[in-house]
């Protein structure tokens, strides 16, 4: 049963319907809370185990010792050895290499790496894609 112009009523109906196009750059796109966007880094909790570096499929992460370390603790008054202060680590994230799989977030034992919903990362300057988190 051939019917020429089978979609006639569907098409005419769409004259009065709301358009499906999302006006993206002018209207913010909403992504799900589970979306895997830019990876953020918390220096305070990082213990420098480099599990993320080992697991990253794209070799996008570098964990280095921070240039500024917290001052060494003063010796305790009673002469016992001081409690060593946690070393501070920086993370250099190459956003141009990152494939946003969030495997580093899954593997981090201290939850120092956090997946954000930030996805508007395109840039004309390549240097800005190398983020240095302190």
């Amino acid at each position, binding site marked *: 049963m051939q*019917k*020429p112009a089978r979609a006639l009523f*569907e*098409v005419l109906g769409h004259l009065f319907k709301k358009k*499906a196009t999302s006006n993206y750059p002018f209207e913010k796109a909403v992504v799900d809370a589970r979306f*895997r966007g830019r990876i953020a880094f918390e220096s305070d909790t990082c213990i420098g185990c480099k599990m993320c570096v080992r*697991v990253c*499929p794209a070799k996008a992460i570098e964990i280095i010792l921070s240039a500024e370390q917290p001052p060494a603790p003063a010796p305790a008054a009673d002469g016992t050895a001081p409690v060593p202060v946690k070393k501070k680590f920086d993370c250099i994230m190459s956003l141009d290499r990152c494939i946003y799989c969030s*495997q580093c977030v899954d593997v981090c034992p201290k939850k120092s790496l956090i997946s954000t919903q930030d996805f508007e990362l395109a840039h004309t300057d390549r240097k800005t894609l190398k983020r240095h988190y302190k």
Partner: protein
Amino acid sequence: MSKITIPLGPQHPALKEPVNFTLVLEGEQISGSAVNLGYNHRGIEKAAEDRTFLQDIYLIERVCGICSHSHTTCYITCVEELAKAEVPERAKAIRTLVGELERVHSHLLWLGIAGYEMGFETLFMYTWRDREQVLDCLELVSGNRVHYGINTIGGVRRDITPGQKAEILKRVAILEERTKYYVKLGTEEATVLARTRNVGLLPHDVALERGAVGPTARASAVKRDVRKDEPYLIYDKLDFNLITHNTNDVFGRLVVRVLELVESYKIIRQVLDYLPEGPIAVKVPAKIAPGEAVNRYEAPRGEDFHYLKSNGTDKPERVKVRAPTMANYPSVSYMLDGGYLADVPMVIAAIDPCMSCTDRAMVYDNKAGKVRVYGWDELRKYGIEHYKKRGVDFTKL
């Protein structure tokens, strides 16, 4: 009438990915064709050999953007088989769910492409609009629209909450209603029928002989579906029909795909109903026991095939992927011969080709428009001669 040889691709509006078809035309009719692959060769299999099993998931996922879940599931099942890991039932259910959502999005994408290739842009716009629903579902479940990254060795990475379950069911209901409309539109609209009926004929015995897979084979009444033949994941617990059609043409492939959509909705409902309680992953050590594994998976385009060899380290020794499009290429040249130039995009699109999946092999042809297929011995001889000319002689080694 004199013969004209025209190139179709590697850059051509009908093709979304680089591949070259050389067509010899007599007027509007095709008297010869040759497929020339290799424009999208990325060396993924080699790259997989110096990454760990876990990192390879994300690499294998990028074999293809459309059937990324098919490839990872197929690969990971090999890994789990070697590691003798017991994947939890809930993880299997979630893998099945994502697999079926992926099939829905791939078949809707195909329907849109088919509309576009026959110049029916309205169908293209409508199906791709509705495809957003399933892409949103996938983002909901996995956190991304294309590279889901939901598989991990020993299970899945993300669980499904009751809220998400309700949301998926709601969207599937919308999709099912729309799909019923497309079934009507595809089987009744006069121009669609004119462009698909008796186009790209692939008789039953030729389909068997040339080893067609997936919807291409099923439209030639070949009852072949890995989900039925060798059930993996939880497909043995599900109730669904194997869709075949006996018109052997593009119309049959359209009908098979659209009806498979309806079956997929059924499966999605059953999986969400079934969803057993329990953990979603088990721990698997980084080093995988030595051995070989082979696995098959019914990707949206047909049978996907993965081979894995491990040598006991944390990296695979060999990964081999045979994507469904590769299995369907021999059928394409059969379908093109004697057809019309106007039908070429339809015929090529009807196997739902995926070049990035396929480009791991080379087909040689020479300049005169004749195709030369090299046998293994010839190829070996050719290779030796070729390198001899460049001053490398393997025979002395």
